[in-house]
């Protein structure tokens, strides 16, 4: 293809000016775009208002499509379940028998726990749950890991609220629009979650890697205490996440860093629960609580 004539205006003065003006607009606009990015460095959640219109359009589309394809994601699981169905049935039945005793024990422990808490007059607020909603889309083309939730400000969702699934932690709310909101997944490279090892409470910090896994750094001195198979749960430090939400399982330890895979896969979970930030849930009923920061830094170790 030869060069187009429109970029070579010749001696036509009007065409020359028109071409020149188009480049001026383009360069000024590009500079403006750069300026907006610079603003976003200091205020990453800014310009949420621009997203309102598009999110109102895309939410019903995503929601309808999600309704049509939910279940497709687990087809492989269903097929795999038919393989060795008989022997699996026997094994599962034995497991149920074994678990029944443990459940009874756990119920007794829970009862005792309630009694002891009453003795200690601890405030344990059960009303931390805001609502249940579904993840309907995500930032599949971007290097950031956001998922879109089909509930927003009008449903009571606020930035900073933790989002979890029955299997484990999903992330926290980043931006809200009237009817939808963006969830910063725990696999995002900027999402820092204070965690601890479930069996001996070694504190650590989990940071997303952007590829569906997280890296875990222990806060203790000395060599890396983690080994494959360790279960990590939230520690409640920092005031965003409730303590004891399952987060991830360590799969590999390398030097000072351990690599872990989140327990809740956002692509698989059907519904997620939005909770109040831990700080709010604790201080809401307490007397004369100090003012809570709007968005407490998740990695902040200082306890108020």
């Amino acid at each position, binding site marked *: 293809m030869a060069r187009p004539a429109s970029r070579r205006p010749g001696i036509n003065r009007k065409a020359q000016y028109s071409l020149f003006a188009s480049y001026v*607009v383009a360069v000024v606009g590009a500079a403006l*775009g750069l300026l*907006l990015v610079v603003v976003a460095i200091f205020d990453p959640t800014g310009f949420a208002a621009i997203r309102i219109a*598009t999110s109102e359009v895309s939410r019903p589309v995503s929601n309808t*499509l999600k309704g049509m394809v939910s279940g497709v994601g687990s087809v492989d699981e269903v097929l795999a379940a038919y393989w060795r169905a008989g022997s699996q049935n026997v094994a599962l039945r034995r497991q149920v028998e074994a678990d029944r005793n443990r459940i009874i024990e756990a119920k007794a422990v829970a009862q005792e726990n309630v009694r002891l808490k009453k003795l200690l007059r601890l405030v344990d607020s059960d009303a931390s749950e805001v609502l249940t909603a579904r993840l309907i*889309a995500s930032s599949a083309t971007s*290097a950031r*890991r956001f998922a879109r939730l089909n509930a927003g400000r009008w449903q009571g969702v606020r930035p900073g609220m933790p989002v979890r699934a029955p299997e484990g932690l999903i992330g926290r709310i980043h931006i809200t629009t009237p009817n939808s909101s963006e969830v910063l997944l725990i696999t995002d490279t900027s999402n820092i979650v204070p965690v601890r090892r479930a069996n001996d409470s070694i504190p650590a910090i989990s940071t997303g890697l952007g590829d569906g896994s997280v890296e875990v750094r222990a806060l203790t001195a000395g060599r890396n205490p983690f080994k494959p198979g360790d279960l990590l749960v939230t520690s409640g430090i920092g005031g965003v996440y409730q303590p004891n939400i399952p987060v991830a399982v360590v799969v590999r330890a390398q030097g000072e860093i351990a690599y872990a895979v989140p327990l809740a896969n956002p692509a698989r979970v059907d519904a997620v629960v939005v909770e109040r930030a831990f700080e709010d849930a604790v201080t809401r009923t307490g007397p004369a609580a100090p003012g809570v920061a709007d968005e407490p830094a998740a990695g902040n170790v200082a306890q108020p």
Partner: protein
Amino acid sequence: MIDPHLYHVPRLGRHPSRFRLAGTPVITVMLGSFLTALPVIAQSPIMPPFGLLLLLAWRLLRPDLWRAWIGLPLGLFDDVMSGQPVGSAMFLWTVALIGIDAIEQRMVWRGYRQDWLIATLAIIFCISGGLFFAQITGGGNVTLFLVAPQMVWTILLFPFIVRQCAWIDRWRVMA
């Protein structure tokens, strides 16, 4: 009875509407950006940026169609849909379009392979630039390895997208 296949044959003296001529490319690029509304919860950047691919395809297929500033509104829409910081695609797409204009000035003749090469450069520029912007706006430590697969299959997908654009273009200019 008229053969139904003949309905779309261009007829003498008829022209497609202005909206179809000017609006079709813009709408296809916006639909490409809108593909992030699909109910896929991605764990890593896997989906090629279809908005960018369609923009490059239209630009290289029809150089007369747009001036370089078209990257501003289309980029803004892509930013809002993609989860990148607002302004990122606005800047990158416009700069890529200005760059294509500059290359075109120096090239006397360009064919299919040159188009693909130009698109490859633009795709690498836009994806790595988007990664850089994600990094500095609070994205933390994102490495280039994370987007390398996305980059590769975006480049490989380009000829297919050009073919689809050409197919839409034939419908667009026919009355």
